């Protein structure tokens, strides 16, 4: 049997960015195992008593308080989210951690994070953790318009934030991926998180900026592999059904075979990414 659910107490309901709800949960049993890139499954009764596992990325951890903040992913149908309507004191069954942590090599000192409003929930904890570990972090973040950007105060002040907006209301007008060329050579590793369009653009930009290998400041050739970790990881935000790798709901085909986001993901190495294909029986 898989990990049994534990009961979490809801401490507060908040907002990560406009329309993106967070839940602050007291769940000390799970806290030690959680890393950036992990999510929790919230087992919650929907209308009619039907209980679904809802995937929620971990956005913040407070070890002393034994609390974890998770973000609710927006519903595809734009409908009401009963989890967002809970109030402090409610109890929620929680399973986790879901997925693998984002791989950061011990030798990587300079990390570039590229995100949009959808993907920010998956990388906020990463940025904070990297700063705590004395790494340098640049966040390229994009939104349709300035008011949809996550607040800078959600990140440690040491994070260098570079903004792109589609309408030009703040920062660069266009995509965060447009800014990749400025930072790609600086970065020991790149983590991109967001809608499929952003992930594709980041992958293309990364391939355009340089070849697989590059020369370090000391004149040595080094691979664009940061130690054992991939240089470019794409974090794919998606519903996760069973959380055990059996249902196929979060699986896609890659050059290296099937990837289950709940088991091998949600962060995947970019070169292996390809669209799902169908072959008839």
């Amino acid at each position, binding site marked *: 049997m898989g990990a049994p659910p534990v009961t979490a107490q809801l401490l507060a309901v908040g907002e990560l960015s406009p329309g993106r709800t967070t839940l602050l949960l007291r769940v000390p049993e799970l806290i030690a195992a959680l890393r950036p890139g992990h999510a929790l499954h919230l087992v919650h009764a929907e209308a009619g008593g039907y209980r679904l596992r809802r995937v929620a990325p971990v956005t913040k951890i407070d070890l002393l308080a034994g609390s974890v903040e998770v973000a609710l992913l927006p519903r595809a*149908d734009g409908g009401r989210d009963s989890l967002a309507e809970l109030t402090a004191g409610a109890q929620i069954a929680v399973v986790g951690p879901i997925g693998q942590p984002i791989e950061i090599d011990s030798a990587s000192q300079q990390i570039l994070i590229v995100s949009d409003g959808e993907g920010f929930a998956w990388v906020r904890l990463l940025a904070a953790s990297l700063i705590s570990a004395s790494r340098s972090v640049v966040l390229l973040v994009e939104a349709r318009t300035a008011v949809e950007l996550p607040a800078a105060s959600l990140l440690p002040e040491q994070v260098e934030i570079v903004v792109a907006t589609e309408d030009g209301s703040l920062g660069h007008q266009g995509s965060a991926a447009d800014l990749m060329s400025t930072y790609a050579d600086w970065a020991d590793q790149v983590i991109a998180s967001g809608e499929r369009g952003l992930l594709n653009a980041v992958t293309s930009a990364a391939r355009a900026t340089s070849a697989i290998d590059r020369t370090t400041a000391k004149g040595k050739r080094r691979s664009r592999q940061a130690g054992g970790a991939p240089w470019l990881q794409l974090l794919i935000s998606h519903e996760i059904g069973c959380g055990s790798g059996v249902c196929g709901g*979060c699986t896609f085909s890659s050059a290296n075979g099937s990837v289950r986001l709940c088991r091998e993901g949600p962060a995947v190495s970019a070169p292996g990414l390809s669209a799902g294909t169908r072959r008839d029986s």
Partner: protein
Amino acid sequence: MTVERTSPSSAEARFSLTGKRPLQLERPIVTASGVLGFGAEAAELVDLRDVGLFVTRGVSLVTRGGAGLPRMVEVPGGMMHAIGRENPGVDEVIDRHGAAWRAAPCAIAISLVAADLGSLGKLIARLESRADLVGADAYELDLTFLSDALGGRRWESSLEESTRFIDAARDSTELPLIVKVSPDVVTPAQFAGAAADAGADLLSVSGSPVGFLPNRTRAASALAEGEGELSGPLIRPRALAAVANAAASGALPIIGGGGIGSPADALDYFAAGAHLISLGSALWADSDLPRAVIESARRAAASRGGSRVADLVGTALRRTTTR
């Protein structure tokens, strides 16, 4: 072919199919195809000793890569998914999972996926040729899959094509055949009769009806495949109607399912005429559900003065038909 209920003292919840193609289940609980994978990994979520029949994920003759992402989204009252029957093909499935099937503490049904009759025949032939490695107790014929002969529509949308499909399977095996349809099936009662005539042994009215949802921008569909399969409470009344309609025909024993999230939901299916209960995505959130359903059914039977779960079957149906 008859449905026999064994004595309550030995196993009041046991289900036995007797006749030429017997099938004995220790519990009236079936796992819906796809929900728990092929079997070996299922133990991560559910104790298979609580289950009567484990239905595998769909198996095709050759590899199916499956659908692109997104494959799964929430919808009001449930979920919509389009996995694409991803599987590595029959030989690899047997190699990887045959040992787990043979060792399973419950009966195993292999869910068969085929777009044409030629593929179906070869698929069954492959399974039969390796029967000692497979250890299957039954086959599920997935008529919610898409038919080449019907231009990519589901087999279940045509009574005539569905009958041909069942006929072809019957000619290829002596194992019990479970025919799976969704509430979208044309006239369930008529379908049950035709399926029985073609050689089916059970009718599983537990498949997912078709749904569609645009994404939030309304510039594309929410699922990569466009249409998807619905599950959850939103389909339960439709599934119950189809179960009741099929059960009233008396042509075949019925497996009923769709949107069951609690023991009470399962009792509704027994009352509508289901002999066996198919549990789906609710198992992800509640691994104790199979045991809870059986306990609840036993209590419900006792409260009616009976001692067998089978006494619950069709109680609402009888009232409906006598009115």
